[in-house]
């Protein structure tokens, strides 16, 4: 039964991706389920107001070294998903760099709390995931989605998360899937604790920016959607050095009017 559901789900996803890739007008936002997405977004905003924002405010009151150490440890853990994706994207230099970082920071850096790898010349690089790898391989982003609690995503990024949850994420494997032949010390709760802490850490770092955005937007849903899609595009293009957003032909059409 599970196999049938998985197969049907995969066919559905591929159809959506292919159809959207074919019909997509580059630059247009593909919000195929906008009504449902807006309802989910409203639910998420309610949850944020009641749960995540107060927790993030509390987290911000922790001493700075504790927050920095937590952020470092979470970053270190994310290498477990970044490294295989570096390899899949053919970026072997980053794979070596991130592997060295993982090794040094997990041992000398005490489970990643400190970042001695930086002093050894292995600098921090961008995170990668399976959604980005699919993007690098040329898969279109598909429709925009808002998932309950998890927030904004696209069909492509959902497929990426699906891959991670089904063997692609080593941290998920040793905690939730219980691959005991590798490591026995971790439990499922460790995985969810790391995911929740990661969300709170991100929210806490962006408290003012979120507040300002909420206060000054005329359509907050559309603002968040735009920022998410731009951010994913930037990450897939690995365009941290030069600004992709500057390559916008619409400025030129403005000149000609």
């Amino acid at each position, binding site marked *: 039964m599970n196999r049938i559901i998985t197969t049907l789900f995969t066919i559905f996803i591929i159809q959506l991706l292919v159809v959207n890739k074919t019909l997509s007008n580059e630059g247009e936002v593909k919000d195929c389920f906008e009504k449902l997405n807006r309802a989910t977004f409203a639910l998420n905003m309610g949850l944020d107001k009641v749960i995540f924002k107060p927790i993030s405010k509390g987290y911000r009151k922790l001493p700075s070294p504790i927050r920095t150490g937590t952020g470092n440890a979470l970053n270190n853990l994310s290498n477990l998903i970044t490294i295989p994706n570096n390899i899949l994207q053919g970026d072997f230099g980053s794979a070596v760099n991130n592997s060295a970082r993982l090794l040094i920071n997990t041992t000398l850096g005490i489970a990643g709390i400190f970042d001695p790898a930086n002093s050894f010349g292995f600098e921090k690089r961008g995170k990668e995931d399976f959604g980005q790898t699919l993007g690098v391989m040329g898969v279109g982003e598909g429709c925009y989605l808002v998932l309950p609690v998890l927030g904004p995503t696209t069909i492509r990024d959902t497929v990426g998360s699906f891959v991670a949850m089904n063997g692609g994420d080593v941290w998920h494997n040793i905690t939730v899937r219980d691959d005991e032949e590798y490591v026995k010390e971790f439990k499922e709760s460790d995985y969810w604790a790391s995911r929740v802490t990661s969300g709170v850490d991100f929210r806490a770092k962006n408290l003012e920016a979120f507040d*300002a955005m909420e206060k000054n937007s005329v359509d907050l849903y*559309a603002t968040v959607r735009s920022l998410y899609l731009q951010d994913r595009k930037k990450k897939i293009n690995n365009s941290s050095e030069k600004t992709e957003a500057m390559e916008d032909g619409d400025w030129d059409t403005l000149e000609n009017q």
Partner: protein
Amino acid sequence: MKILKNVFISILILFFLTNNSWSKSPSEFISTLSIEASNILSSKLSDDEKIVRLKEIGEQSVDIKGVGLYTLGKYRKALTDSQKKQYEELFKDYFLKSFSGRLVAYTDAKIAVLSEEIKNEKYTIVYSKLIGTSERPEVKIDWRVYTKDPENPLIRDLVIEGLSLARTQKEEFNSIIANNGGNVEALFDSLNKFLEN
């Protein structure tokens, strides 16, 4: 003869000094502007006073009319002359309120200009970073400076960590118009509501 030579050199120096102050490079323009804004934000002025000062800066340094037209995207061409005039006024008020409202939360904003890249005669990109604090990580900010009139450079976009504020604004406005059957008046209503609050 010596007097003539001295006069000539003095005139030459004066010319270079004044000419330099006329045509400020985009980097210098952003640097001066950032220092000015940072001084206002870190001052002991009340939030309302800071907002007034920030609005003055915004009005002088941003191409509000150009940004406003850009943010309409494909709906720009459908505007009648009277709608265009109404929109320009509305957008200016909206922009200045939104711009100052977003900035006023930052009391310790210090920007370091890193470099500039001349894209063409109309645009130069200035690369900078917002210095990180214990509360906030370092943030990359790129400025699209409109240099068609080199003596009066104007900002057209801010790209924060690769995310364009102008593009975000355009997609926000376009969403409102699209969800109301392509009627730009719906955007005007939203902007009026925002300004009333």
